[in-house]
């Protein structure tokens, strides 16, 4: 079924529906109805790291910069440095092990497909789903460029997408919390567990709690 989205995009509804009908089995409750190929295509926009789900299209860094300046820079800054507390998109290399990690597409995100998928489904913030595929390719190319991953003349397309890797991909590992000491299942101490206790830090020193009457 991994080829299914391509089929829908490439072929016409009649073909897709006939393929489905061949394997259609009635559910136990016979509730709901079969989705049409147009319906699935309308909603099935998600993209995976292996490129599954990418639409046809292409876009250059220069085209991306133009869209970025118009639709993205007011929150994310001209070069992805961000305004106020909006997400930083570029920079942050070599900060992840420091006191102030800056998690950007270049420094942190493991997969480029995540950029394409997220921009395509949720950006710009005030008007999601308004970008054409070529625009999303162009913006993704621009985001790569401001993260020093590609040159100014780079063009990103469906065809070369899967070849693009982000530098931090290898630094993610699956959940292994249970192997850490805090999950030792040790019967906890009940009395005289440590010497007399001292206060080491107080919230009031920072004083960042909202006031009672702040709405």
């Amino acid at each position: 079924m991994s080829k299914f989205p391509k089929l829908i995009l490439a072929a016409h509804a009649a073909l897709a529906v006939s393929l489905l009908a061949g394997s259609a089995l009635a559910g136990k409750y016979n509730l709901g109805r079969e989705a049409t190929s147009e319906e699935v295509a309308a909603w099935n926009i998600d993209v995976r790291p292996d490129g599954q789900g990418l639409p046809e299209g292409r876009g250059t860094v220069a085209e991306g910069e133009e869209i970025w300046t118009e639709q993205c820079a007011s929150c994310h800054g001209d070069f992805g440095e961000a305004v106020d507390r909006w997400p930083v998109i570029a920079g942050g290399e070599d900060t992840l092990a420091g006191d102030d990690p800056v998690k950007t597409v270049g420094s942190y995100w493991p997969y480029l497909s995540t950029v394409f998928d997220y921009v395509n489904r949720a950006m710009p913030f005030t008007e999601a789903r308004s970008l054409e595929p070529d625009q999303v390719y162009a913006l993704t190319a621009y985001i790569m460029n401001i993260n020093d991953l590609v040159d100014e003349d780079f063009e990103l397309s469906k065809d070369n997408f899967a070849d693009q890797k982000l530098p931090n991909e290898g630094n993610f590992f699956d959940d292994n919390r249970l192997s850490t000491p805090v999950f030792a299942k040790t019967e906890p101490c009940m009395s005289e567990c440590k010497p007399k206790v001292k206060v080491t830090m107080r919230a009031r020193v920072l004083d960042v709690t909202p006031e009672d009457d702040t709405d």
Partner: protein
Amino acid sequence: MVRDMTADSPTDDHKLKARRSFLRGGLAMGGAAAAAAAAATAATGGAALANGDQNILELKDWNQYPGDGVDARPYGTPSEFEEHVQRKSVPWLTADPISSVNFTPLHELDGIITPNGLCFERHHAGIAEIDPSEHRLMINGLVEKQLVFTMEDLMRFPRKNQINFLECAANSGMEWRGAQLNGCQFTHGMIHNVMYTGVPLKVLLAEAGLKSNAKWLLPEGADASGMTRSVPMEKALDDCLVTWKMNGEALRPEQGYPLRLVVPGWEGNMWVKWLRRIEVGDKPWHHREETSKYTDLMANGKARRFTWEMDVKSVITNPSPQAPLKHDKGFTVLSGVAWSGRGKVSRVDVSLDGGRNWQAARIDGPSIDKSMHRFYFEFDWDGSELLLQSRAIDSEGFVQPTKDALRAVRGENSIYHNNGIQTWHIKKDGTVENVEVS
């Protein structure tokens, strides 16, 4: 303290009676002020009681005049004297309230169920306002038959009720570097506990027919963030619910009306609101909320991903910074909540001396898998300073760690999954502060 009460103001009739009371030479007070005066009277103790408590000696309006009739409040709201019980946000935390979070006032609640209007909110593109007649749920991908359901279709499936806590993975996330926010609402309020009604996800998947290579699901929201998370098939076939009711009534808009995925015990971000589509696939999608966000950065710069379960945790809700002790020394009730994404809570210990000595608290009310538990510890306060802590142990035997033990294995930059033991410093005057201890 007195806010605009336009939203649920007492009736004009009620105000008139209050004015009448004033003209009679009684206490000229609105609700909040009256409550404050009552507290002041109580605080002065016996000295003010020449002939006795004025609250007893004086005839009260509510004791003399009839109140509102049955249809004055067709959808009931709390007493005006409870108006301070509200969700609250921490404005500096996020760039914009549209993609932000507020917090459940845990210190004002008791038992285990969170009232619908007080369940904390976390939106990534604001609240989607959806007409249920226009809402559809699609199941597509690696299934025998790709399906579309209306809300009416879904309500014809066999139903199940489940009480589960939902905790944001970032709950207590602001406390990694030390005590910061003064109130359990802010330190621990990204949680709620609700009874959901819906259809088991596995029933819907069976209706579509899973293909043999179906290993992952991608639930997707209908809001403007198009929220997506990858959910492994084992969890989907275990205890996930597709729900439309919370605590007996329709989901609130801010909780995903008309349809929400319930993923018991797992981080709240996966409980996709405004659920409109579930794609079935053979690999995870690695979308934004499971790569850029909701991954746990370690001190060495590497990051843990797919950290789904919420770890065993507890907090003392009363007393706490927003709920100080208002009485002199004497008998008092300490109360709190505990939960684990890996099972039930089997025990909660309480310390009055910052974790040096511990005693078992009393769990009261239902003990349910992946639900909040309520605990109490009654004691005689001698009026001295205390360092209160609670420590939960779950049915798997996992023990809530100290914050320092957690920092030793996580560093201070992981944001998510902070289940460390909280300390409240009770002062001699009964006020309470969020502190860290040796």
